[in-house]
């Protein structure tokens, strides 16, 4: 049984199903991270003057800047991998998607180092409300990075078989995976100044 508009777009909406689906999912993710950002705002503005700890007290700005650069680079490689498929260049696709995956690994390594140093200095989520929201926001973000990496890893590896049998459908899948990955980058673009710099 074939579901219509899985690959070719529906004429009046101009969309194929998964593209609408992923944007709707991203909308719910905006609300999820938005709720956490809202919590941050409420906790910070509600804190008695002088009791709120600032990011700079605990956090490593250069490391986080590096992570920002890594993630932005990974967004470029992600969209380049999709563009390569559009240009029928499977080898370049694999290269770019592989680089995206590696950037993810890099991001996680930096994060692991960051968390490690914090725990080493006795800074835990329970230490104060700032660290609590820091660990929660970045932790949830890390889980989303890992999720994206699993998907990307699948498409670099066994999932790539579909290119030979259904190239257009496969290209769409990469576009959809890319949209998710860009969103993960987008969240970090806001997380970074909010937690580390303000």
């Amino acid at each position, binding site marked *: 049984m074939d579901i219509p508009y899985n690959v070719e777009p529906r004429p009046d909406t101009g969309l194929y199903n998964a593209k609408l689906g992923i944007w709707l999912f991203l*909308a719910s993710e905006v*609300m999820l991270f938005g709720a956490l950002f809202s919590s941050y*705002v409420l906790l910070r*503005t509600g804190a008695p003057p002088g009791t709120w700890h600032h990011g700079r007290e605990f956090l490593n*700005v250069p490391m986080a800047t590096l992570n920002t650069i890594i993630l932005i680079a990974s967004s470029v490689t992600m969209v380049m991998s999709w563009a390569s498929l*559009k240009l029928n260049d499977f080898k370049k696709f694999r290269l770019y998607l592989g680089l995206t995956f590696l950037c993810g690994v890099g991001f996680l390594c930096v994060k692991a180092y960051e968390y490690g140093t914090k725990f080493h200095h006795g800074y835990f989520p329970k230490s104060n409300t700032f660290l609590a929201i820091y660990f929660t926001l970045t932790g949830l973000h890390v889980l989303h990075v890992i999720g994206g990496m699993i998907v990307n890893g699948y498409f670099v590896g066994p999932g790539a078989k579909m290119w030979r049998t259904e190239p257009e459908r496969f290209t769409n899948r990469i576009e959809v995976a*890319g949209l998710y990955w860009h969103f993960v980058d987008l969240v970090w673009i806001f997380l970074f*100044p909010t937690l580390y710099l*303000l």
Partner: protein
Amino acid sequence: MSTTDAESIRKQTRAYIGVFFALMVLTVLTVAVSYFHMPVVLAVVVALAIASFKGSLVAAVFMHLSHERKVIYWVLILTVVFFIVLMAIPSLWQWDLRVAR
């Protein structure tokens, strides 16, 4: 949805690289600006403005939102409205209590 022929993809590729460099510059700017001592409200506005601009570049260019379909725009506009409500009300709540005193 973006046009599929090779030439337009190549043009888009140039845009991707261009945006990458813009984002690098803006990231450096974000960090640099944070070293100036500003009153909190101004610092927040500046930081969010730069982040929003970076975000719009990612959304418009990498996520192809600049030539996306109406349906997607409507979903996102609706989401943004509710997002603003969720961000604004708890903060306005505190302000309202302070004003009341």
